[in-house]
């Protein structure tokens, strides 16, 4: 699921790139998106498509809202000190996870796919929905790319990334940019989650694996480099499938985590990262 992974990882990468904040709670935003998708689809009348579209619109907004609130109430007060924000986002992780457990329960629940058809090739069938996910993720990634490189808001974000104080001197409301970036990053994770829940079920602990994988992607791609993140996401998403053919999932995870740690030790700019 390289496409969904890329969406989640780009969210993490954006937040780190612009704000220099390592968001440990990123996986929980992913989980929150999935759980919210279950609520929205469960309580929307009509065919699954309506509920799915509603979820696709509402969940990122909701999760983005939570993220913006967290930014305002917590991160801003810490003055975005890198180490303090990690501790704070760990706290956030526990709170969100517990909130999901208390309000949603420990069960994994399925969300109906918006449509059911299979592409029947002579030798095997392929779920049409999975192809739709890949297409949707590509469209969204392209939109993020255009937004960052072409729009005024993207320009402002990049300016803040390069030099926060100069940006402020030019009249940019840095606080609002930060809240926006944090919300955007969380919103991307939520979209990824909404796309994935018809395939995987919504569960309150589902944030762990995406978090670990996103970390791997972001670090290998180079911290804060969106282009590197995309390449790395495709690479890892594909190789994850390949590795798990040869090894057990646990061993694959061990190798992946060790690999990431060693990349950080010996090539901190990432395998594809630009020189700082």
């Amino acid at each position, binding site marked *: 699921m390289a496409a969904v992974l890329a969406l989640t990882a780009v969210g993490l990468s954006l937040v780190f790139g612009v704000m220099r904040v*390592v968001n440990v709670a990123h996986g929980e935003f992913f989980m929150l998106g999935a759980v919210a998708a279950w609520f929205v689809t469960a309580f929307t009348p009509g065919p699954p498509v309506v509920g799915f579209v509603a979820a696709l619109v509402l969940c990122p907004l909701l999760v983005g809202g939570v993220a913006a609130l967290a930014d305002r109430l*917590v991160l801003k007060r810490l003055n975005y000190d890198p180490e303090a924000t990690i501790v704070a986002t760990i706290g956030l992780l*526990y709170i969100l996870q*517990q909130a999901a457990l208390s309000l949603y329960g420990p069960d994994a629940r399925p969300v109906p796919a918006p449509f059911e058809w299979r592409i029947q090739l002579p030798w095997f069938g392929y779920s049409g929905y999975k192809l739709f996910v890949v297409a949707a993720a590509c469209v969204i990634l392209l939109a993020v790319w255009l937004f960052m490189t072409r729009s005024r808001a993207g320009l402002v974000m990049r300016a803040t990334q390069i030099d926060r104080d100069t940006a402020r001197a030019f009249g940019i409301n840095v606080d609002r940019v930060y809240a926006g970036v944090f919300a955007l990053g969380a919103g991307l994770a939520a979209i990824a989650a909404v796309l994935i829940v018809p395939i995987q079920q919504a569960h309150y602990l589902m944030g762990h694996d995406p978090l670990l994988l996103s970390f791997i992607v972001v670090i290998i791609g180079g911290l804060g480099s969106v282009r590197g993140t995309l390449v790395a996401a495709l690479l890892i998403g594909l190789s994850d499938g390949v590795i798990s053919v040869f090894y057990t999932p*646990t061993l694959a995870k061990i190798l992946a*985590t060790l690999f990431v*740690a060693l990349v*950080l030790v010996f090539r901190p700019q990432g395998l594809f990262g630009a020189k700082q």
Partner: protein
Amino acid sequence: MKSLALHLAVIALLFALQFVLPPYHHTNIARVMVLAVFAMGYNIAFGYTGLLSLGHALFFGAGLYAAGLMANGGWTGLATLPAGLLAGGLVALAVGMLALRTAGVSFMIVTLMFAQAGYLTILYFGPVTGGDEGFVLPAAARNLAGFDLATETPRYTLGLALFAVALLANLALVRSPLGRVMVAMRENEERSRMLGYNPFTVKLTALVISGLYAGVAGAGYALMFGYVGASFAAIQYSILPMLWVLLGGAGTVLGPFIGALLMFYLIDLSSSVTTAHQMVVGVALLALVLFAPKGLLGTLRERGLKWLP
């Protein structure tokens, strides 16, 4: 002098407490004391040297499993306790050699990743380590020089002994030249480098000492409570010592114990009201980072008790 008296008084108080505590709290305090040793180790790296690690569960787990696996092989506490100590120190040495090439946020992520890899390794070797379910130590192995650690008094005494030695060693370390250099590293690495100290060696030494503490705490925990499981090497056990240290006061000798004690009873009391103890941990972390980054003793030290080590 004043501080030595204070720390000896705390140890004496804990010694006296065992005669008046009801059984439930008797076990709890024994548990808190051995966890406080773990927290003290964390504090040596984080509080004094400024190394914010997210992977101390690995060192604790190394001590825990070294003791647990040897106990399965028939060894008793006289061998397993030093083995746990060494295992923690050796793993810390290996991790430190690599991780200390990075600093700040990268150091946090690298230690986190190493600890995660260690945790997964324990799961991977499930047939030997018991995986998630863990295993119970054989009764014969829970024995230290003839004392049965499954009974209350020896268990409490071992906890207290570990705690007392760790606390006094910590106090001595902080007052030693090495302790001063560690603080200098935390405050200004460049300046201490200019003064001729090698940051890498100092930090590595601090991390290894920290690992020794975590390792012996892990081994002590295994012997005292007779259970070894992968959950003790999971990320939660990297976060908890950080929380205890932050609560009690980073860079204070008694802070880790006070933090562990308060947090233990906070979760214990709140679990009678709600099952949401993760929420308690999360809120406590946020509140500490936001409103009291220096913790209890750190704030007290600022407000007049300057002699507090």
